[in-house]
């Protein structure tokens, strides 16, 4: 069973996806992360998060360009709950 506790990168991705309800592409996540996420590894992280059930991906049959279709990621309910829990935990730690 995969570790369901999110890493810093996963929390960052969850935060970015929560702010964008329509979802984001991988490149948009990389651009919005200000260098925290890398092009070569972002999809490994996203796949891991998808396995955990935090996010959902959708690959359109026909892409938005002539090449391969790009997957589109949206946040799932477990991801939202996980993000809220992580934020509450960090707030308690700051208070303590």
């Amino acid at each position: 069973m995969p570790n369901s506790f999110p890493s810093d990168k996963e929390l960052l991705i969850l935060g970015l996806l929560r702010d964008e309800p329509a979802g984001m592409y991988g490149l948009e996540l990389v651009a919005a992360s200000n260098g925290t996420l890398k092009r070569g590894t972002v999809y490994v992280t996203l796949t891991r998060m998808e396995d955990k059930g935090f996010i959902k991906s959708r690959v359109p049959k026909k892409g938005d360009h002539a090449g391969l279709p790009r997957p589109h990621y949206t946040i799932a309910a477990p991801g939202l709950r996980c993000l809220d829990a992580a934020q509450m935990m960090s707030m308690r730690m700051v208070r303590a």
Partner: protein
Amino acid sequence: MKRRPDYSRDLEPLAAELEAVRIRSERTLKQEAERLFERLKAERGELGARAEMQRLAELTAAESAKRIDELKTAQREVELELKAGMTVYGRKRYLYHVFLTTKPSTTIVRLPGERLGHALSILLTRRAYQKTVAPVIADAQYEYLGAVSAGRDLHARWIRVRLYLIVWPGWVYGFFASLIRRIIGAGTGG
């Protein structure tokens, strides 16, 4: 590239001769006419001299006009030749410009990562390829097409190179990591 032909030297003598005719008709011929009138007046009287002068003036004017017409025709021919030369020169230059600036309207290019994607789809599992490699290639192709359509050829080339730099190290690292994990798992009986 062929230099523009110089026709200015051909026009110079014609223009000089035209000017000479004009000066002679205005000054020299006037003085000659006065001398001729005096001589004719002495021979035929004033009325006869005037009639003869009128006839000679008409002949001189006709001759001068004829000569001027000939010179103007010659000048026009040279000017036409000059214009034709410029046209040929301009056409050649235009064709040269077209040759240099025109690119084929349709260019078939292979998108970055096509062969790499085929190779890795054979080497990797279907899930690993679809989840980690294909999206990276798709992003590179998306950026590549955007750069090409914007005319940023150098950036497009860099995207193509960068794709190989991104994908290969990650795949090699993943391959050896999974290999080591399997060896350790086999050693521990897990």
